[in-house]
C-alpha cells in the first residue's frame, strides 16, 4: 500500500516537508531536550548545514518537558513557555518546521500554536485524552508506537485521532520491549503500521535505548544506530528520527543514545541512499507483495 502524504509546515516562514508516498526520506532530528537558547540555535545551525549538504528534508526536534525521565533528579526540561519560545525562534531563524512532544492535555494547544508537527510520546500512545488533544491542534501528529504495543493495535490509536477530526498522522517505531530493560526492533512493524494508510518513521536513537538499565537512568547501545538505520531505510520508511547532540556525554537528556553530531552526515547519507535504492528497486521490479493470491 502506498501511504498517503502528510505535509509538515503551516506557514510560508518554513520550508515545508512532505512525508509519505515516493517523497524523499525526511529527517526529524535535534537534541532530545531543549537545554538552553544558545545550544538550540547552535544545534539547529549545525544540523541544518548537514541536511543541506546531504539533501535531506528536515524537521527540528527538541522537547521542552521530559516527563518520562527515570529519576526525579534528572533534567526535566525548560518548561513549556520558555521551551516553545526557543522553538519559535529556531523556526523563524532557520526556516525549519519544528516538532515537540507534550505529555499534558493542557499543553496541547500552545504546543500546536508553535510546532508544525505535534508528537505523542510512546508511553502515552493509547491515552485517549492525549490523542484527542493532539488531533485538535490541527497539526499533523507524530504518533510513536509504545514499546509495549503490537503494531496492529496502533490502528486503535490512529482511529482515536481520526475520530477527533485529524487525518494527518505519522507512525513511528522506537523499539519493542524484549523482557526487562531491553528493546528490539521488529521490522515487520513498518509494513504492518503502513496498512493504516499513513506514512511510517523509524526512531533510531530511542530504539537503541536500554530503558532504565543503569539504576536511575537509561543506558543505550548507540554503536548499533547505523546498522538499524540502514535496515529500516531498506525495509521501507518515510521518515527517520534521531536525536543528535554536539557533546553526547554531557547531554542533559538521553546522553547514552543521542547520536554525536560529527556522525550525522554519514548516517544520513546512508539512510538517503538506502531509501532511494529501495524506491528504484520497487519501480523496476514491482511492489513487495509476495503473498499467495486469495
Amino acid at each position, binding site marked *: 500500500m502506498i501511504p498517503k502524504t502528510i505535509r509538515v509546515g503551516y506557514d510560508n516562514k518554513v520550508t515545508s516537508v512532505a512525508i509519505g508516498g515516493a517523497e524523499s526520506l525526511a529527517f526529524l532530528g535535534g537534541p532530545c531536550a531543549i537545554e538552553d537558547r544558545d545550544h538550540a540555535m547552535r544545534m539547529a545551525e549545525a544540523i541544518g548545514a548537514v541536511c543541506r549538504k546531504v539533501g535531506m528534508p528536515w524537521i527540528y526536534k527538541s522537547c521542552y518537558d521530559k516527563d518520562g525521565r527515570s529519576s526525579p533528579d534528572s533534567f526535566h526540561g525548560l518548561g513549556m513557555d520558555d521551551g516553545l519560545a526557543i522553538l519559535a525562534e529556531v523556526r523563524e531563524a532557520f526556516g525549519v518546521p519544528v516538532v515537540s512532544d507534550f505529555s499534558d492535555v493542557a499543553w496541547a494547544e500552545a504546543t500546536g500554536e508553535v510546532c508544525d508537527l505535534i508528537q505523542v510520546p510512546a508511553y502515552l500512545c493509547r491515552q485517549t485524552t492525549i490523542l484527542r488533544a493532539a488531533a485538535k491542534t490541527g497539526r499533523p501528529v507524530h504518533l510513536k508506537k509504545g514499546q509495549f504495543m*503490537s503494531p*496492529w*493495535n496502533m490502528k*486503535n490509536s490512529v482511529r482515536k485521532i481520526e475520530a477527533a477530526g485529524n487525518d494527518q498522522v505519522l507512525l513511528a517505531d522506537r523499539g519493542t520491549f524484549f523482557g526487562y530493560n531491553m528493546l528490539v526492533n521488529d521490522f515487520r512493524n513498518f509494513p504492518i503500521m503502513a496498512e493504516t494508510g499513513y506514512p511510517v518513521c523509524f526512531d533510531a536513537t530511542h530504539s537503541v535505548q536500554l530503558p532504565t538499565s543503569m539504576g536511575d537512568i537509561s543506558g543505550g547501545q548507540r554503536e548499533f544506530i547505523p546498522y538499524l538505520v540502514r535496515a529500516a531505510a531498506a525495509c521501507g520508511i518515510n521518515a527517520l528520527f534521531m536525536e543528535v547532540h554536539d557533546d553526547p556525554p554531557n547531554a542533559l537528556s538521553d546522553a547514552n543514545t543521542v547520536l554525536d553530531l560529527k556522525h550525522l552526515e554519514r548516517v544520513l547519507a546512508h539512510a538517503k541512499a538506502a531509501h532511494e535504492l529501495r524506491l528504484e528497486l520497487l519501480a523496476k521490479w514491482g511492489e513487495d507483495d509476495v503473498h*499467495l493470491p*486469495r
Partner: protein
Amino acid sequence: MSTSRADMRVGDVLLPLDKVPVVAPTTLLKTTLETMARFRLGVAAIVDDTGRLLGVFTDGDIRRMLLRDQKPFPALFADDIIVHATRQPTVIRPDEKLAHAIAVMEDKGIWDLPVVDNDGRLKGLLHLHPAIKAVLDL
C-alpha cells in the same frame, strides 16, 4: 390469492436488513465475528456509507484465511474486515424468481445470496433454509 412455486420471488422470503449481519469495511474482524454469531449466520455483508454492497465475509473465508494468513490471532482480530472479504460476490435482485435463486446457490455451492437493488444497495439476504422451506410449504 395463493402464490405458486413458479411465481415466488426472492423478495418474498429474503431476510430483511435487521435480521442480517451488516458491517462497515473498517469494522474489525473480531467485531464482525461477534456480529455473525449474534445473528447465527455464517455470512456478513459489508456495505459502504450509502448501503452499497462492497463484499461478503463468510465461514468459508474464515477457513481460507486461517490456512493462508498464519499471523497471530490478535493481529487477525485487528484487521479491517474488508481485507479478508470476498469482493464482488454473487448477488441477486429481489424480483428474481426464487427457483432461479436456489439454482444459483446450488450452482455456486453457497448458502447465502445478498439481495441488492439496481444500484447495488443491499436490501436483505436470501438464506437457503427459509428459501427451501418456502418452496416446500407451498
